[in-house]
């Protein structure tokens, strides 16, 4: 018999009596009086920067020092940022190893944890989003939700595909619990909240 059938048979034989799936819709999850304020606070708490954009997106980007000094820039937001890499023409994800700055659009932002839902990341060339030294994430103010339950009710992962929650810059505390920003991925993460 195959390993698959052996394992499934063993699990069937061992299965406990049926237990019902609880009704998740009945959960009253945390809500915040001011979504934007709570989201911005959460982004800062996870080591990121949050900017409420009131002028143009371009100006807001230019105010980020790492953007201003970046040489190689990738933008997944068409027409935004002075992108000088055409992802469609990149045939090898390794070619993105020297990206300095990457701009990612987020479909959703979650107030309770500062996480942004990233579905547009470059597909076969999503390595740019992880190899980049610095990140900016752009999310619309009307795309903020209170908690992850609301978030999952509104997002889907494309199949086949890849999507992620991104919450702040890459970090580690593996050496004596000291928090260090910039482990393997982005050294900074600026979240730009654009008006509705």
């Amino acid at each position: 018999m195959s390993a698959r059938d052996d394992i499934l048979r063993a699990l069937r034989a061992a299965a406990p009596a049926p237990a019902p799936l609880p009704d998740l819709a009945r959960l009253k999850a945390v809500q915040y009086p001011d979504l934007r304020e709570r989201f911005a606070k959460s982004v800062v708490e996870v080591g990121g920067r949050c900017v409420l954009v009131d002028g143009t997106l371009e100006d807001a980007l230019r105010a980020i020092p790492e953007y201003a000094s970046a040489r190689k820039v990738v933008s997944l937001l068409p027409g935004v940022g002075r992108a000088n890499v055409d992802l469609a023409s990149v045939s090898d994800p390794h070619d993105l190893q020297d990206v300095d700055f990457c701009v990612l659009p987020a479909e959703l932002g979650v107030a309770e944890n500062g996480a942004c839902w990233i579905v547009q990341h470059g597909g076969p060339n999503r390595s740019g989003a992880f190899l980049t030294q610095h990140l900016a994430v752009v999310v619309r103010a009307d795309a903020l939700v209170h908690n992850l339950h609301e978030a999952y009710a509104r997002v889907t992962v494309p199949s086949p595909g890849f999507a992620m929650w991104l919450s702040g810059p890459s970090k580690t505390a593996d050496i004596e619990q000291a928090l260090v920003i910039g482990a393997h991925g982005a050294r900074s993460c600026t979240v730009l909240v654009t008006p509705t």
Partner: protein
Amino acid sequence: MSEHSQRAGGFVADQPRMHWHDQAVWFVRNKRDIARSFVPEWEELRSLASQIKAHTLSRLPDYLEEFERNAAAAGARVHWARDAAEHNRIVHGLLRERGVTRLVKSKSMLTEECHLNEHLEAHGVEVVDTDLGERIVQFRREPPSHIVMPAIHLKKEEIGELFHEKLGTPAGLSDPTQLTEAARGHMREKFLAAQAGLTGVNFAVASTGGVVVCTNEGNADLGTSLPPIHIACMGVEKMVPSPEALAVFLRLLARSATGQPITTYTSHFQGPRPGAEMHIVIVDNGRSRILAREEYRNSLKCIRCAACMNTCPVYRRSGGHSYGVTVAGPIGSVLAPHIDPKKHAGLPFASTLCGSCTDVCPVRIDLHHQLLAWRGELAARGLVPLHKRIVSRVGAWVLARTWAYRIFGKLLRVLGPRIPNPWTRQRELPPMPRESFRAQWKKRVRPR
């Protein structure tokens, strides 16, 4: 003395270091408490998580089949392994067929459990653990001492010395930021040179066929977005029914583990990148046997947050290596005896049964009850040392007879301090009262 007691003895011999470890781990427990305080529905979330897992375990084969169908539809190939050896053969086979000799790995306790690294290295594959803590212990050729913070037992000076030797950092450098920067540079080269990436799995979602991997460093993402092959290894118990259920666990996991509201990267892999391959290896390795045992099956709900270790007074003062297994602490002590009851018979005794593990567990595993159940079972199977069995027998006999209890009480008040007792090696026995409680009670309540 059990192996755990012996190894713990070595750890506590260095008192300042033991206290430092205790404080470092307790610091994380405190961060968990703070994070929890911001979620008013925390206790309800724990109950929901526990119920979702109970439901999923009761229908595990159905969910695994649903997951397999959906993963295959998304373009992933699903493999099944009955045990560690089969898992290692499958992974090595995939690498061999594709001529892979350089593999980057993000954290996977399952592959630690299966000793995959040793297997692959014996076959000429270079395996680089890319989580910083894992890389540190890999350089030292030792297992992780903690499932979330693998190098929590080491001081920054020791890591500095290690990096000086392995990465050529300046001698005497011990600043965590500079050491991390050195590791970043070293690991970038490894990521860029890798021919395949292997990850663990935090959650596998049945209704979508996707796997979810949580990291703070971004190492799982670099390891899977550069090379053309992604291998994800998971135990059968990683299943959750749907994205809605996943939300419950993601809210609990990072808060319980490190006090963060969510990890930096929570990546949902649904099939391979265009032009790449994705393989998922589903492993039993004794889990179906645990599922069959009613008193222990709740341990399969575990989401590996390590909160039970961080809170455990024994773990904090004896260190993860004293357990001698991949997963240490209370959860490790209830899982390990399933693998080898004789070898790990000491672990269920490495606890004060204070119940703090049960109190913090995000999926409400009845950990201290399981530890106690194991003690009974190990004793019944004759796997508890003779002296412990004799003491328990005598104790039970005495406590069942009032007259014997009185005589023994008197004897112990006189002889107790003189009996050689390993317990008093690091502690002082309080002075013995001159009279029994019963005698004192009589005087105070009914004075004559």
